[in-house]
């Protein structure tokens, strides 16, 4: 079974979406079927565990470019995640995107986005991977700016593409450097032959991964990206795009271990996680809170990788996909019922839809890291790994856990308040009007969130026999199974409980908005404006350099302009040779022959 076929149904449905752009009602079902088709193909592909395939694309000289795929347990995991979440998101989108006129464009871009991630997941060569990577970048730009008429959408999309493209360029440089020293694009061959020549490419790839996965100092594009439609956010944060960076580092984990770059990853991960958690605690935008919490989660994954706890990172990788998609779906539903208000203090009545409330609770419990859902196992195993190797990191992690418990319950509790008396009937009505296609995926996802705890037990069985998993390369395997110490788990749970209780105390009564105005607290933790100001400063610096170059350029331009004008002038002169007189042509002919004879016949 050709692995590349997994993207075929999605690509076909995207093209159909483009062709049927005026028939929104058909497009949405076509796309849903396409995503289910991809899922079926993923099932078929996962039947053979490890397989490398490659199709010749073209070759220029010694440079042969193949569309190569390589499937092994780790990327099959990612592929399954994308494959399962895509139909759920598509189903949610069917309810979410009301206006038929937008369906064609939306599903076209979503389909390409999903297939970009799948291509990235199964890529066996750097070129194939880069195609998927770029496809993600471009389509995320289109999707974030989907509502281009909104004032914040276009700048947010521009911010995202600027930062992501910065990473793309580093990635391209790294690919060229690797080609220079290895003369192959095959990832498998590169991973199994580590050498010193890889050091700088690895650094570049790491920075590229940080840009894609929104790590400090590149993280601010992710909250800004909330300007896009909610299904896009749910998709972007759960299984696609931001996961690409983490996956890249995870799949090259052994190389980073060899190159002693893990401490850098650890530090960046810790800073990002701390930034994410603190900003989430102070933010009021219902989706941006979740965006910051994604930054935190991704940071935790990098922390786990940095600590060498490979399996713990993969565990969080799986678990996070489900609960984050779930939480975003809920956020979208709440915004829908509260006439697109995004401020959590202006969102009311989450109690009015019990199914949604209960489903969301699964996500909340899981992200907080409370037994027995998936989040607990993932976060506790990261904590245990830190406790045994790096005490400072452990302290920071505990603090982050506390804040996590706080902000996620804050996020959950505040919208539960009853609306003002005059609004009750209207609100009740709008909760009743929530389309089923938006509720159903949430329920499925809550079940998956609960089930994802099983990954803790099955991961050691799944992650075997691959050159990408550290144990395989370095003999005795220590990191295959995530481990949890009882004491660590207890400490973690205690800290979460304190955070959650604080949230309950502060926000379960209506005193909350007043409390929020404590400027001291918010100044300290809510540093997003500062980061954004730093971005602006950077942009201004580059603009200054740019205007210098522009001046130089205008000098060059005037030179080139003179050359160009003289070319046109020459054309005007030469044109007179072609004057319509056959005799002139014959003369030129004869002269030409004579001149060539004089030049060459000796």
């Amino acid at each position, binding site marked *: 079974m050709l692995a590349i076929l997994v993207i075929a149904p999605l690509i076909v449905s995207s093209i159909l979406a483009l062709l049927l752009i005026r028939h929104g009602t058909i497009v949405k079902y076509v796309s849903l079927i396409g995503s289910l088709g991809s899922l079926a193909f993923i099932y078929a592909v996962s039947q053979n565990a490890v397989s490398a395939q490659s199709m010749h694309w073209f070759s220029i000289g010694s440079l042969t470019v193949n569309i190569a795929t390589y499937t092994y347990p780790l990327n099959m995991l990612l592929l399954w995640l994308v494959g399962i979440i895509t139909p759920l998101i598509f189903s949610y989108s069917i309810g979410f995107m009301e206006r038929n006129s937008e369906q064609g464009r939306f599903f076209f871009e979503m389909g390409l986005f999903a297939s970009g991630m799948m291509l990235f997941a199964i890529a066996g060569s750097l070129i194939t991977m880069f195609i998927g990577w770029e496809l993600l970048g471009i389509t995320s730009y289109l999707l974030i700016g989907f509502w281009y008429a909104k004032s914040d959408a276009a700048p947010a999309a521009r911010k995202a593409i600027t930062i992501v493209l910065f990473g793309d360029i580093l990635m391209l440089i790294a690919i060229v450097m690797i080609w220079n020293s290895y003369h192959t694009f095959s990832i498998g061959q590169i991973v199994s032959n580590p050498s010193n020549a890889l050091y700088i490419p690895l650094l570049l790839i790491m920075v590229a991964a940080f840009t894609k996965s929104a790590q400090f100092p590149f993280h601010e594009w992710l909250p800004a990206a909330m300007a896009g439609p909610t299904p896009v956010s749910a998709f972007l944060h759960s299984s696609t795009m931001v996961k690409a960076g983490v996956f890249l580092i995870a799949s090259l984990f052994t190389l980073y271990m060899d190159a002693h770059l893990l401490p850098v990853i650890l530090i960046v991960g810790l800073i990002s996680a701390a930034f994410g958690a603190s900003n989430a605690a102070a933010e009021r935008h219902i989706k941006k809170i979740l965006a910051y919490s994604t930054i935190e989660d991704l940071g935790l994954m990098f922390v786990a990788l940095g600590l060498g706890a490979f399996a713990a990172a993969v565990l969080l990788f799986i678990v996070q996909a489900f609960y984050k998609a779930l939480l975003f779906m809920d956020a979208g539903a709440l915004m829908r019922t509260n006439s697109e208000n995004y401020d959590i203090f202006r969102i009311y009545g989450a109690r009015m839809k019990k199914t949604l409330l209960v489903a969301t609770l699964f996500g909340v419990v899981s992200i907080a890291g409370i037994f027995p859902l998936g989040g607990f196992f993932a976060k506790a195993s990261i904590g245990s790994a830190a406790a045994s190797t790096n005490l400072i990191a452990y302290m920071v992690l505990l603090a982050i856990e506390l804040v996590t418990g706080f902000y996620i319950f804050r996020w959950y509790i505040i919208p539960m308040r009853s609306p003002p008396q005059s609004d009750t009937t209207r609100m009740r009505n709008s909760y009743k009007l929530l389309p089923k296609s938006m509720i159903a995926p949430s329920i499925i996802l809550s079940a998956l969130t609960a089930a994802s705890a099983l990954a803790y037990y099955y991961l050691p069985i799944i992650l075997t026999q691959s050159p990408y998993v550290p144990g395989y390369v370095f003999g005795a395997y220590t990191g295959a199974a995530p481990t949890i110490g009882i004491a660590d788990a207890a400490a973690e749970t205690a800290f979460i409980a304190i955070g959650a209780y604080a949230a309950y105390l502060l926000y379960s009564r209506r005193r909350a908005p007043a409390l929020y105005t404590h400027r001291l607290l918010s100044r300290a933790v809510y540093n997003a404006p500062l980061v954004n100001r730093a971005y602006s400063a950077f942009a201004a610096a580059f603009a200054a350099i740019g205007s210098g170059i522009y001046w130089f350029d205008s000098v060059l331009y005037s030179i080139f302009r003179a050359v160009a004008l003289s070319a046109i002038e020459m054309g005007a002169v030469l044109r007179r040779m072609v004057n319509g007189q056959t005799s002139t042509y014959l003369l030129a002919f004869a*002269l030409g022959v004579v001149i060539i004879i004089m030049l*060459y016949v*000796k």
Partner: protein
Amino acid sequence: MYSISIGYVIIALIALIPIGATAGLFAKRKKAWFYTSATLLVTIALLSLFLLAYQASFTLLQIFRFYPFSELMTAVFAFLLIAIDALSYEYSADFISFSLFFGLSITGMLLVVMANSLITLLIGLELMGVPTVFMILAHGRRHIEAAIKLFVLSALAISLLAFAIALVSVYNPTLSISAALEASPLASTGVLLPLAIVLFAAALLTEAAAFPFNLWVPDVYEGAPGHVTAMLAGINKKVAFVALIEVFFSMILYFGYAFQPIFVLLSVATMFFGNLVALVQTNVKRMMAYSSISQAGYILVGISASTAAGLSSSIFYMIAHAVMIIGAFTVIIWLDGKNIRTVNEYSGVWSKNPLAAFSLTVFMLSMIGVPPLIGFIGKFLLFSSAVGANLLYLAFLGIINSVISVYYYARVILSMYAGRRYERKVRMADIVSVVVITMLVVTFAFGIFPGPLMHATSLAGNSVISAWPAPGAP
């Protein structure tokens, strides 16, 4: 041997085309003849491809030569001629009598491609050229000027060719192209051989439109009816190049005379002349005439390189350019019929017919050499072969010319999308849009997957060059 009998079948089918056209004169069945001729051409093309697949190599009756080069070019020309046939069916005032001349011309073209004797070559070129004059004339008096100019210049070229053949017969008494290899090489001390070489070059480059033998081109291309122009630019010119390659690389190279400098000079002059004059044109058809002159210069780059890679890339680019220019002219003559001729009049074509605007954009981008289109691959191969043959400056000049050409192509492209908006869309005739879409598909297909065509052209290029005596050849 099956392949030899297939060779006979191909020749018989070629002969059937003018015979059938003559019969068509009496039957007056326009549609029937169109389908018949298209079927004949498809059959010829498929049989040639079949021979190419087996890399068959043999001579027939001493005057025809089948080897990968001739097989590939026969197939390509046969396919492209179907497009011209379709266009003539749509645009010819009198398709029946037109097809008689057209059929004779086809015979001449394919004769040149398969020629193994200089006499066959001469007859083939004559047979291709003279009916073309009548094809132009068949469309009324206003084309008379173009027809006369074409006639005078091709008459001159043919006479020079005959003279050159006479001169070279001293060295190659059998006048056979491939059999010359079996005779012993003569030291090129005399003045006759160089003179013959220059005359060959001048005669063959007249039809191929290289500076300074090209001044007739803009007048004729502009004055001739569109589908004939498409044929002149797309096929006749390439046939002349095929003749050039046959004469120079199968025969003259063997005499050990370094003719390379002639082509370097002509290539540079042609590229610059075509591009510079195109800059100041406002009539799009005339602009494309100059553009096709400059494209002939690019093809000469590969010929100048005189290596297997250079020859293969020239063949590749010939095919690429034939596809692009036929596609472009198809759109241009369709617009010409709507009285849209100058760059200014092209404004808003997008809103009139999106297919026309899109396809013309693609063809022009491909001529500039933008990936992932066929023109990019062609130029890439050409310039890298020039670098490989230590002609770095030639590659550099070629790239400069590509940059110059962006200016006038971009003017047309921009004009089509900006400016005026038409209220009503106008559809192309089905047969015309089929031609355009086919060329569009080919342009994209071989741009993204150039592998098969590159393989075929390198087979063809090597088959011409492999017959060389190994040492001493430049």
